């Protein structure tokens, strides 16, 4: 019996347990006061109570068993005489064993290594022996726990409360995954970052203005690991250029859609704009690099900026701005809609025109929400990698010239991690440090955004 069939068997028995639990509870069901049943919970809940008892412990046992049994099986197989011819230790021995095992399980038909064939029979025997043990133990557990729970069914058993408590635990666990992930991210970055900072001083890294990683420190001890240009590039593309494109377009789109557009137009236009956010960033990257960047460069040259390079902060920023228009517009949409309509009515009743009402009352009132939304959009923009990889180049320039090439943190992370440098060189480890700093920055941005949004919500409640 394989573990899958065993699992199905256990689940099947669980259903049987559910049935018996329900049956017993239904038998106890008599009318008490009024038409109310003497049962605390519906028979269904009693059924689930028994079923959970039957399934959960056995399943946990099976999981543990599936971790323990392979090595027991291998040990048993190695005790067979055929094992004597195996090479001692090493990958070859392991590979032969695992091949033999795969054949024994029927996952594989032919052996690449002839030695494997001899081990198949001992494996088969060991496997069926231990599978038998596991199956018997699991089934015993199903019965023991199921019967225990079944015996406990009484009219006043709070089966529903117990089931609900279990469900609640599951819900809580689901939301804890977010914290686990956050901690996981932190842990997966922090060790390499620490190694990096043991080679490069954090001060130089955080406040250095030159990003040009060198193998050895220069004459003035400069290492070229100054992250400021990267962060500047990130801010320049993601928070300045992209926002110059996205904020007016997004905000005005939201205003038009919420305040002026007929419902029909709005119901069509909104999803169309949302497609902008759904287009994969590789596509944007490709578009930016092959269409927008050359066009912008030609434009720059035609207006006399001869130094314009074809990978420009502007190209990446503009395309990124287009990408996040829907983020800004939907946030603005929400927060304008959240301004109580009594504000609008108040202003209109004073004799203000529609646009005056929007500009002087709605936008100021919605501003915190809009700002919160923009901050979230910014954190999305600064995390964007592909557009920049493809369109903005890799040159870490500290420049405010939008026609020159700059680079961003995420781009450099990709570049450093997929580069040819040895993995313990600071050049590779810097990627983790950049990642950690970026993570902390987005965390801060989010905390601010949350604060702002929360504060503004309270203003109307």
């Amino acid at each position, binding site marked *: 019996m394989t573990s899958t069939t065993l699992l199905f068997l256990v689940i099947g028995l669980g259903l049987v347990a559910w049935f018996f639990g329900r049956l017993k509870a239904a038998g106890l069901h008599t009318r008490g006061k009024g038409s109310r049943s003497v049962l605390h919970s519906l028979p269904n809940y009693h059924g689930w109570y028994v079923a959970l008892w039957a399934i959960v412990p056995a399943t946990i046992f099976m999981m543990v068993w599936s971790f323990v049994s392979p090595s027991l099986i291998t040990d048993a197989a190695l005790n067979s005489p055929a094992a004597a011819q195996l090479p001692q230790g090493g990958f070859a021995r392991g590979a032969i064993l695992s091949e033999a095992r795969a054949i024994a399980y029927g996952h594989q038909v032919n052996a690449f290594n002839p030695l494997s064939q001899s081990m198949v029979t001992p494996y088969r025997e060991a496997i069926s022996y231990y599978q038998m043990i596991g199956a018997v133990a699991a089934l015993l557990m199903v019965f023991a726990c199921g019967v225990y729970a079944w015996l406990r069914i009484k009219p006043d058993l709070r089966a529903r409360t117990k089931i609900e408590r279990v469900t609640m635990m599951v819900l809580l666990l689901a939301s804890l995954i977010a914290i686990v992930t956050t901690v996981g991210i932190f842990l997966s970055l922090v060790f390499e970052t620490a190694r990096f900072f043991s080679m490069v001083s954090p001060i130089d890294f955080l406040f250095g203005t030159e990003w040009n990683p060198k193998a050895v420190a220069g004459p003035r001890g400069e290492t070229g690991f100054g992250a400021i240009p990267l962060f500047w590039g990130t801010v320049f593309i993601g928070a300045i250029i992209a926002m110059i494109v996205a904020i007016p377009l997004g905000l005005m789109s939201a205003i038009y859609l919420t305040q002026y557009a007929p*419902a029909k137009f709005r119901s069509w236009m909104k999803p169309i704009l949302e497609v902008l956010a759904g287009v994969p960033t590789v596509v944007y990257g490709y578009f930016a690099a092959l269409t927008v960047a050359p066009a912008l460069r030609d434009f720059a040259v035609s207006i006399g900026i001869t130094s314009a390079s074809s990978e420009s902060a502007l190209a990446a920023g503009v395309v990124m701005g287009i990408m996040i228009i829907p983020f800004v517009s939907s946030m603005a949409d929400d927060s304008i809609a959240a301004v*109580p309509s009594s*504000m609008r*009515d108040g*202003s209109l*009743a004073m004799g*203000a025109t529609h646009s005056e009402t929007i500009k*002087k009352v709605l936008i100021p009132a919605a501003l915190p929400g809009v700002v919160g939304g923009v901050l979230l959009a910014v954190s999305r923009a600064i995390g964007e990698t592909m557009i920049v990889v493809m369109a903005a180049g890799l040159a870490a320039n500290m420049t405010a010239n939008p026609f020159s090439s700059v680079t961003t943190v995420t781009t450099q992370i990709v570049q450093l991690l997929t580069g040819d440098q040895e993995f313990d060189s600071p050049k590779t480890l810097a990627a983790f440090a950049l990642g950690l700093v970026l993570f902390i920055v987005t965390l801060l941005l989010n905390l601010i955004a949350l604060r702002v949004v929360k504060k503004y919500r309270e203003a109307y409640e």
Partner: protein
Amino acid sequence: MNDDKKMQESSESINMTDPATTGATSESGTPKMTARNVNVFYGDKQAINDVSIDVNMDSVTAFIGPSGCGKSTFLRCMNRMNDTIPIARITGDIRLEGDDIYAPQMDVVQLRARVGMVFQKPNPFPKSIYDNIAYGPRIHGLATGKEELDHIVESSLQRAGLWSEVKDRLQDSGTALSGGQQQRLCIARAIAVDPEVILMDEPCSALDPIATAKIEELIHELRGQYAIVIVTHNMQQAARVSQKTAFFHLGTLVEYGETTDIFTNPREEKTRDYITGRYG
């Protein structure tokens, strides 16, 4: 958006029915506002059915009636706030000093400056007290300089009886005031653009008894300076503040007359039933 919304039957409907039959009166002076044969529809549903009424300068007019009878709807027709509801449609004739307010050449922005409105829930803008009051004068260009604006703000607050309470904190946010103060702020805001008519839709229903008393007092003081229309659920309040009362029921104007008459000696059975709490 609704600038081009206009009355479908304005020309033929004027003076078609005798106002006297539905109780519209014109005994004291020329009426400030007149409504004739007004019908309002929300989509297919008729909310106001052939209502004619006159509003005078020197009296406070109260609209009473059970919930959903169309009091607010009619009130909002009087300064075209109903324009903001896309499905609302209105026929009939409403005039402000003889000007048809639904005529195409009528500018709704100026109309609303002349006919101010105070809402059920106090709705100060989330700006400073000063800016709340100054908002109207600014957009209408009523003040030429800072002093003049200051003056308007001060006098409006004084007339709304709020000056002494807020004069030291004009820069505080309007939303930081208590409910009753906020409602008086809204009244002051309406006064600041120097309207001719003030419409109030249940101005006290969100307020506690003490704040209510203050507002009622204020209405007393404002009477005569502005034509005031007030919607209320509270018949005692109507009796206390108004000189004329209109009783609405299911979208029709059942009875309109002197407040004392309505409350002591109603002509209609329905009015009597409502006044005595038989329903509503």
